[in-house]
């Protein structure tokens, strides 16, 4: 923090502040306060995966008005449930959101940096990045975490947003090397993602309404929690439900908990009759 301290003590702003440079906040950090960059630490060798909290399943799907993203509320540390009400889906800016799976600490740090990055660009340039531009910026941030990923502290985000140019919702997935892949219709990441994706395969169809699409995501998270011990199902006694967010032409919006509660109650009631969830037609 030495250079940070210098910037707040009497004296003019240090050179990097006034230098002609890029509109990227992470590049500015690398110059002025590199110790604040998430990827700047090299942890000692060894497996650190059980030392920190892990976030689990994130699902996203596009629908007529844009895109929805939802995440369960569980964080685990080895066999321990470390937190029941963690939030893993965040607004990235007014027209996009990001969900995180993997090591929660570094993931939340990367999300904070990503949010700062997008806002910084917007303020410096006076215009927002394109959706592809945002997705590419996230690539750079994830790539910086590769050394940590090799030691069990991987961060696997799912990015979704509303593309104002093509007027549609879009989803991007990433791997730990920063590889960026655009997904069609729906996708899921995290430990329960295999089950969630299988579930969405049967439930998803084109032109779902927002409510139907939300229901499909809640069903998918239920199926993930059903078969993956690290994914939390809806907590009916504590009334803790998945976080669901929508990004449409009107911007980012978190669906109110009361609406999700009603939906979850209906899903759980139906599962009382058929625990495996709605049956898809055979042909």
């Amino acid at each position, binding site marked *: 923090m030495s250079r940070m301290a210098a910037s707040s003590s009497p004296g003019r702003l240090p050179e990097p502040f006034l230098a002609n440079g890029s509109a990227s906040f992470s590049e500015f950090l690398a110059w002025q*306060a590199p110790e604040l960059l998430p990827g700047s630490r090299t942890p000692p060798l060894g497996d650190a995966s059980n030392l920190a909290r892990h976030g689990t399943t994130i699902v996203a799907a596009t629908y007529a008005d844009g895109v929805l993203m939802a995440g369960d509320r569980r964080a685990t540390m080895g066999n321990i449930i470390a937190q029941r009400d963690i939030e893993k889906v965040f607004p990235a800016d007014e027209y996009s959101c990001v969900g995180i799976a993997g090591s929660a600490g570094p993931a939340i740090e990367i999300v904070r940096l990503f949010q700062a990055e997008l806002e910084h660009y917007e303020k410096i340039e*006076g215009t927002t990045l394109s959706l592809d531009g945002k997705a590419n910026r996230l690539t750079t941030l994830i790539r910086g975490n590769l050394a940590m990923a090799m030691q069990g502290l991987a961060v696997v985000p799912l990015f979704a947003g509303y593309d104002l140019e093509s007027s549609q919702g879009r989803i991007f997935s990433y791997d730990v090397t920063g590889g960026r892949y655009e997904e069609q219709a729906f996708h899921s990441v995290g430990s329960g993602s295999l089950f969630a994706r299988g579930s969405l395969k049967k439930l998803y169809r084109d032109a779902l309404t927002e409510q139907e699409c939300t229901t499909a995501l809640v069903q998918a998270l239920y199926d993930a929690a059903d078969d993956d011990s690290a994914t939390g199902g809806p907590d009916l006694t504590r009334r803790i439900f998945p976080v669901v967010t929508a990004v449409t032409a009107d911007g980012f919006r978190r669906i109110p908990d009361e609406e999700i509660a009603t939906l979850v109650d209906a899903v759980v009631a139906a599962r009382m009759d058929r625990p495996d969830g709605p049956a898809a037609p055979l042909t």
Partner: protein
Amino acid sequence: MTMPFYVSPEQQMKDRADYARKGIGRGRSVVAVQYADGIVLVAENQSRALHKISEIYDRIAFAAVGRYNEFENLRIAGVRLADLRGYSYDRRDVTGRGLANAYAQTLGTIFSSAAEKPYEVEIFVTEVGEVAEEDQIYRLTYDGSVADEHRFAVMGGSADQAVAHLEQHYIDAMNRDQSVALAVAALAAEGDDTEPRELDASNIEAAVLDRTRSRPRKFTRLSDAAVSQALEAGEPPAAGE
């Protein structure tokens, strides 16, 4: 053989101040006015792309007059400082006072350094609080001095006429349209003529820090349409006396 003349420090500072003032005096003024829900900033600006008024952080805005490249430099430095503070601490820890201090130190050092030419700029750092009493308007001049202004503030070439107009017409707790109309009228009052100039919405750059905005970022630019509407609807209130 040429001999360097002795120039007293007083004279040196005075020359530098004159130089800076001359540069600033060439441009049009910027007005900040407090209203019921926050602060409006209004400038006369022919350009669509080059802004005199901009967002720094959630509750903080920046406005400037003078040499564009110099105040643009300061604006970017402010955004960097605010984003760095907010990222390394918390969003609530970014304050207008901290930013005004950093600017004051920077402008002051540059002004008194013999190796650099003084910046030909004046800037506002404004911050909207939870309630009107917490609103802040800091006015910084080329030599790094800071003034803490209340109700309204004007900077730029012929600020005196605009100030006179505002002193006569400002009332507390105006609505947004009224305060925009008042600020535009104050800008129109400056100039060599005794008659106020005609100002069109397309020549006006305006933005507000509105504490009632639901999102954390309280800064909003007003479109030409919003400014025209304010000029029509927000008949400036009658003289205060």
